[in-house]
C-alpha cells in the first residue's frame, strides 16, 4: 500500500528527516542552557519568596523554620533536577556513540564530535551541581556561623559540628569524595555513556536499531546500578545481622541504644554514641562514593575493550589497538 510519504524517493525522504532532526538538535542546544539558568533562577526566587511564609503556631523560631525549610526544598528540587539532567546527558551521549559507529570507521574523531555535541548538556548539569554546592555552602553558613544573622537551629547540626571538631578526618574525607563525585561525575557519565553506546552498537547489526539499543543500554545500566545498590545494602545488612545478631538473647551486651543493629561492634570507640553513629554513616557514605567512582572509572574501560573487540572482529571499525575512541 503506497501512502503519500512512501511515494517520496527514499534518499530524499531520509535527507529531509535528517535535516529535521538536525534542526531540532540545534534548537535544543541553543535553548538548553538559557532554559536551565532561567529554571534554576525561577526555582530559587520562588522558594525564597513564596514558600514558608506563615509559620505554624508550634514553631518557636520562625526564622530557623523558614530558612531551614526553604534550604531543604531548594536542595531536594536541585537534586531532582540534576538527576533528570544527568539522565538526559547519559541518553544523548549513548545515542550519539551508537550513531557514531554507524557513520564511519574513524571512531576517535566521531567520538570527539559526540563529546562536542553533548557539551551543552554537560555544562547545564555542572551548572546545576555548582548551584547545589552553593546552596549547601549557604546552608552551612546559616547553620554554623552568625555572618547572616543568628545561627539557625537544624536537627543534627550540633552533633555534626561537634563531630567535626573532635574527629575531622573522616568527615573531611567524605566531603572531599562527595565533592569529587559532584564535579567529576558528569564527565565520568559522558565517558561511561559513550562506552555503553559503543557496546550497544557492537551488538546490533542494523544501523537504525542502534539508537534503540543505546537507549536500552543506558537505561538498563541505570536501572541495574540502582538495583545493585539496593540489593548490596540489603545483603550486607543481612550478613551483618546473621554474624552479630543471629538469635534473640536477653541481656546481650549492647553498644548502641536504638534498633536491632545495636549488637554491631562500635567502629569508633572513645567517642560519644551519637558521634560514633555520625562517623559510621560517614564511613558508609565514603565507601559507597568510592565504590561508585571506581566503577565509573574502571567499568567504561572494560566495556570499551569488549565493544572494540567485537567491532574489530566484525570489521565494522578499522582502528588499530592503540587507537582507543573513548
Amino acid at each position: 500500500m503506497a501512502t503519500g510519504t512512501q511515494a517520496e524517493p527514499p534518499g530524499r525522504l531520509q535527507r529531509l528527516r535528517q535535516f529535521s532532526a538536525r534542526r531540532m538538535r540545534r534548537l535544543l542546544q541553543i535553548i538548553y542552557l538559557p532554559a536551565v539558568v532561567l529554571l534554576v533562577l525561577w526555582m530559587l526566587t520562588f522558594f525564597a519568596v513564596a514558600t514558608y511564609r506563615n509559620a505554624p503556631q508550634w514553631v518557636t523560631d520562625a526564622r530557623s523554620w523558614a530558612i531551614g525549610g526553604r534550604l531543604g526544598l531548594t536542595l531536594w528540587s536541585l537534586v531532582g533536577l540534576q538527576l533528570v539532567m544527568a539522565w538526559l546527558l547519559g541518553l544523548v551521549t549513548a545515542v550519539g556513540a551508537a550513531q557514531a559507529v554507524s557513520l564511519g570507521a574513524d571512531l576517535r574523531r566521531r567520538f570527539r564530535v559526540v563529546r562536542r555535541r553533548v557539551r551543552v548538556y554537560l555544562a547545564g548539569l555542572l551548572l546545576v551541581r555548582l548551584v547545589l554546592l552553593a546552596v549547601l555552602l549557604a546552608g552551612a553558613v546559616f547553620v554554623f556561623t552568625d555572618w547572616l544573622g543568628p545561627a539557625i537551629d537544624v536537627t543534627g547540626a550540633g552533633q555534626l559540628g561537634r563531630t567535626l571538631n573532635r574527629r575531622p578526618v573522616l568527615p573531611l574525607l567524605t566531603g572531599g569524595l562527595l565533592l569529587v563525585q559532584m564535579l567529576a561525575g558528569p564527565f565520568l557519565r559522558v565517558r561511561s555513556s559513550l562506552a555503553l553506546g559503543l557496546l550497544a552498537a557492537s551488538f546490533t547489526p542494523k544501523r537504525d536499531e542502534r539508537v534503540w539499543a543505546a537507549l536500552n543500554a543506558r537505561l538498563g545500566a541505570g536501572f541495574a546500578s540502582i538495583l545493585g545498590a539496593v540489593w548490596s545494602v540489603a545483603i550486607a545488612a543481612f550478613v551483618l545481622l546473621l554474624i552479630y545478631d543471629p538469635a534473640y538473647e536477653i541481656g546481650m551486651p549492647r553498644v548502641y541504644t536504638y534498633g536491632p543493629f545495636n549488637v554491631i561492634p562500635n567502629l569508633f570507640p572513645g567517642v560519644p554514641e551519637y558521634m560514633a553513629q555520625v562517623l559510621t554513616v560517614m564511613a558508609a557514605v565514603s565507601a559507597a562514593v568510592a565504590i561508585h567512582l571506581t566503577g565509573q572509572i574502571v567499568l567504561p574501560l572494560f566495556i570499551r575493550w569488549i565493544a572494540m573487540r567485537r567491532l574489530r572482529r566484525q570489521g565494522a571499525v578499522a582502528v588499530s589497538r592503540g587507537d582507543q575512541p573513548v
Partner: protein
Amino acid sequence: MAQATVPTRHGRLARLRPGWARSEHPVYRLESGRRVANPALRVLQKGFLPLILATAGLVALTIAVLFGPRQLLWNPEGAVTNTLGALLFALVMLQAFTGAAANILVVAQTAPVISGEVELQSWGLLRTTLLPLREIVLAKYAAALAHLRSVLAGLVVLRFASTVTGLILFAYFLREVFYFEPSRLSMWLREGMWIMPTIAVLLFGLWYVSQPFVQFLLSGAIGLVASTFSRSRSRAVAMALAGRFITWVGSIVLNVGLIYGLVFLLIVNWAESTSAPLQVFRSMPQPSPQQVAFVLGSTATLYLLVVIAVQVGLIVGGLALAQRRARRIGG
C-alpha cells in the same frame, strides 16, 4: 564515506530453533517482511523496552531515596525490609501493567496472521504450496512472536528484578521466623520438615520466573486460535482480546477461589482442629507440626504442578486447535 555494517551472525541459539522458526523458512520470511514494513509496530516494538527500563529505574530510585535513608540509622532492618517490600510491590505492579500491555500487543499481532490471509483471499494460495499446514501455522506464529522479542525482554528484566528482590526479602522473612525461636531451625532441619515446603518454594520460583515466556506463548496461542475462527482481521483481533480477557479474569477468579478454599480447609480447619470453624474437623486429632509441614508443602507443590500443566496444556492445545481449524478454512 564507507558505512559500517555489522554482518548478521546466526548463533548457536538460532540453530536450535525448529525449521519453521528460522529466517530461511519461506512463510516465516514472508510474515516477518510484512511486519518490518509497519512503522507503528516498529515504534511499539522498539520503544517498549526503553519505556520499561526508564519507568522501572525511576520507580526504583524514588523508592530507594524515600524509604532507605529515612530509617537507616536507627532501624536498618526496617529500612531494608521496607525498601525491598515497596520495591517488590512496585515491580509486581509494573509487571502487571506491562504484562497486560504485552499481552494485548501479542494478541493483536497473532490474531490477524491467518484471518488476514483469509480476508485477502490468499490463504488458499498458501495452501497450494507443498508446505505442510502445521509448518505454515507455526511459522506464522513464530514470526509474529519473534517481532515482539524486545517486549518479552522487558518483561524478563522486570521478572528478574522482582525475583531477586523477593528472594532477599524472603531471606529476611526466614531470619525473622528463626530469630526469636532458634530451636525451630534445628527441628526443621533434623526432622525433615523442610523438604516439602522447600520443593514447593522452588517450584513456585520456577513458575514465577517462567511466567513471562508462558504468558507470551499463551497470548500468541489465543490470538492464533481466534485467527482461525474468524474471516476478518478486525473480528479476529476483537475475539482474541475477548478470549485473553476471559482467560485472565477466569484464571484469577479460579485461583483465588481455590487458594481461599484450600487455606480455609487445611490451615484454618485441619491444622487448627481444636478451634476449627467447621464441626467435622473438631473431632479430628490435632496434627503434628511435621504433618502440617508435609501436607501443606505437598498441597502447594501439587497445586503448582497442576497450574503449570494447565498453562502448558492451554498453549499446546491452543496451537493444536488452531491447526485443526486452519485445515477447515477454505480459500
